[in-house]
């Protein structure tokens, strides 16, 4: 049942993204940035928490989750350390994705050759 919820949620988000991609002149780069910002915004209005409760993994797999993580850790930082916390804690949760992508693609880049 949870898997079905995750399927429907992330499916609908990707569907909306595809509609934007097809019906406007925005490139995939624009759309991913837009959805990241949207994730942070949904964190601000408190909706992304509810999406997360509903869809779990379905919400965690989207790029919007990255924006939400950044917003969430910035808020946690503020509660712990005030304004300084906004600077020092903003990347706390998002660090996993950034460091992961840097390390994995560096190692794979050393092993593999580009194909074209």
């Amino acid at each position: 049942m949870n898997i079905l919820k995750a399927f429907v949620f992330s499916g609908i988000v990707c569907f909306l993204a595809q509609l934007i991609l097809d019906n406007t002149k925005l490139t995939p780069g624009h759309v991913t940035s837009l959805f990241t910002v949207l994730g942070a915004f949904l964190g601000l209005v408190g909706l992304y928490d509810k999406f997360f409760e509903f869809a779990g993994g379905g919400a965690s797999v989207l790029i919007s989750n990255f924006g939400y993580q950044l917003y969430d850790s910035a808020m946690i930082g503020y509660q712990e350390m005030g304004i300084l916390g906004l600077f020092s804690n903003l990347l706390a949760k998002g660090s996993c994705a950034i460091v992961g992508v840097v390390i994995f693609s560096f190692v794979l880049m050393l092993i593999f050759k580009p194909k074209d």
Partner: protein
Amino acid sequence: MNKDEYKKLVDKLTPKENKKKNAFWAFMIGGLMGAIAEGLVTLILKCFAVSEVEAYQIVCLIIIFIGCLFTALGFFDNWVSKAKAGLIIPTTGFAHSVASATLDYKKDGLITGVGANYFKLAGSVIIYGIISAFIFAIIGVIIHG
């Protein structure tokens, strides 16, 4: 040939993409990614003694690793051009953009090639994510106190 004629010719020759089909595949593949993530989270919570937060981070890393690996193996580009938003909006799109940039610029050397172009495509996601999160956090602090 004046501008209008040229524009007509371009419109005629640009391949028309099937929007319904694209949207359907984006929904199916995007949904599948979510379902896989949810399944992995459940599996990891059952098999290993980890907290829920850790399980989500592990799944995030697994999906990023798979995205990078498939890009390096060379067949992920075809998948992305078929599934479009279905693979771009999940974290795989983020991984794909970094992995393909590093591979493409490998020939230019480690510093001016790979290092300089690492976040060529994914940079905008990180930069605007940080800027928007910062601004929204300030707004959140003002609203929620």
